[in-house]
């Protein structure tokens, strides 16, 4: 009696061989944009306006799906291994370059590699901002750096997780300024902000949108920015480049990728569609509300930006090394 259900089941499993994709004009089916972070996070909030604008331009449904887990690795691995037919795209953050490097560091097979993707467009690139609690004595970045040199390993900072974007930003600064800080990883950007607001740490490298409200209310003081140019919402905050530390350059950027092997005409279609999408007034309005300036780059420009960024981050990860073996 129990053999029948099993045989039935086996028969059904045998019929689940994937059906061959028919040749069709692109796009003919709904496209999925995978956001590898939970709803409400930076990647998710950027992905939705992108999807909406893309849908308008392509006149084809584009839906956002959150595939969360392992600081983005789950979603990124999902797209890296999905069929390269242009119907599964990824909205990735700068951590896409960090995760494979961290995997290499621990000697485990990488969840995915950067060359499993074809970069389509850079959407936004927010420089991180160095903030300290307002009741701390440092008024400028120089004060901070000098104090850090005097007391190596004493000044603590929080981050969104080890080898995460906020950690890497601080790491680049530490290397460029030749200082040593004490790192407190927290499970995400939210807890990192809570930690500094509660006075449990003394510094934080954060994406600007999350801390602007606290800067305006006087709880946090911005000291410097990791960008090449000053952030439009914080015109009085100098960049580390101005302060003579060009190595401290870091952006929390968001870009759209497709799996490698996506046919060239599909890639071209998507690239031009994205170019049109970011010009849509609704898209601009949505990004304004998020206080995230649009920094659109494509093709060769994006590739150069991406490669330089990936190289910086890979070096940073290698420099941090394995924390536990120190």
């Amino acid at each position: 009696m129990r053999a029948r259900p099993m045989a039935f089941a086996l028969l059904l499993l045998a019929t689940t061989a994937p059906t061959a994709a028919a040749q069709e004009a692109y796009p003919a089916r709904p496209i999925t944009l995978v956001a590898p972070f939970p709803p409400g996070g930076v990647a998710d909030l950027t992905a939705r306006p992108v999807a909406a604008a893309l849908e308008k331009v392509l006149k084809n449904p584009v839906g956002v799906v959150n595939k969360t887990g392992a600081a983005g690795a789950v979603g990124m691995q999902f797209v890296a291994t999905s069929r390269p037919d242009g119907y599964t795209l990824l909205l990735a953050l700068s951590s896409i370059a960090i995760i494979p490097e961290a995997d290499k560091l621990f000697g485990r097979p990488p969840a995915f590699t950067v060359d499993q993707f074809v970069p389509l467009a850079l959407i936004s690139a927010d420089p991180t901002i160095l903030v300290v609690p307002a009741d701390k004595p440092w008024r400028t970045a120089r004060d901070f750096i000098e104090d850090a040199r005097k007391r190596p390993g004493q000044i603590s900072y929080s981050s969104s997780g080890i080898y995460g974007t906020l950690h890497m930003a601080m790491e680049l600064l530490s290397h460029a300024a030749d200082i040593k800080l004490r790192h407190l990883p927290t499970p995400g950007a939210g807890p990192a902000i809570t930690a500094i607001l509660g006075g449990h740490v003394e510094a934080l490298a954060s994406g600007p949108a999350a801390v602007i409200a606290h800067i305006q209310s006087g709880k946090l003081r911005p000291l410097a920015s990791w960008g090449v140019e000053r952030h439009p919402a914080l015109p009085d905050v100098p960049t580390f480049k101005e302060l003579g530390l060009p190595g401290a350059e870091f952006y929390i950027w968001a870009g759209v990728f497709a799996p490698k092997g996506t046919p060239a005409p599909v890639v071209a279609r998507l690239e031009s569609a994205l170019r049109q999408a970011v010009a849509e007034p609704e898209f601009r309005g949505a990004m304004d509300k998020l206080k995230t300036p649009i920094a659109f780059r494509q093709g060769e420009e994006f590739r150069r930006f991406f490669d330089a960024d990936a190289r910086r981050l890979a070096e940073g990860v290698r420099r941090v090394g394995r924390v536990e073996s120190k």
Partner: protein
Amino acid sequence: MTTDRAAGVVLALFGAWVLWESRALPLGTLRHPGPGYMPVALAVVLVVCALAIVSLGAGAPYVGAAGWGEWRHAVAIFGACAFAALALERLGYRLTVALVLVLLVGVLERRGPVGTLLFAVAIAAGTYFLFDTLLRVPLPRGPLGL
């Protein structure tokens, strides 16, 4: 072999296995515990408790007497659920659910074919409509669009 003894042995073995698997994780120091610290500590606690349970477990009822009568049924249910897990993303939600319900209600519980089929299709389509269409919770679609 009493229930307590059996459980204790299995738990002790599990704890030992965790200890073995943790050997690659650095222990760190008491002042800076590493990733292996807590797993090792907990595994030790588990093994100690398990051994204590084994040594005190003579008075517990025998394993056979614990009432395993429904095991065939339980295995069949588990099999159906396993099939669901395997098929969910390959066959799509609606087809998988309908099949699982047919398996459980029709084959295992031996209810009539008409009622079973109606029930299966109703639940599969109804929940899909409610969650995928109305609430926009993405549920997998199989090759047949189901």
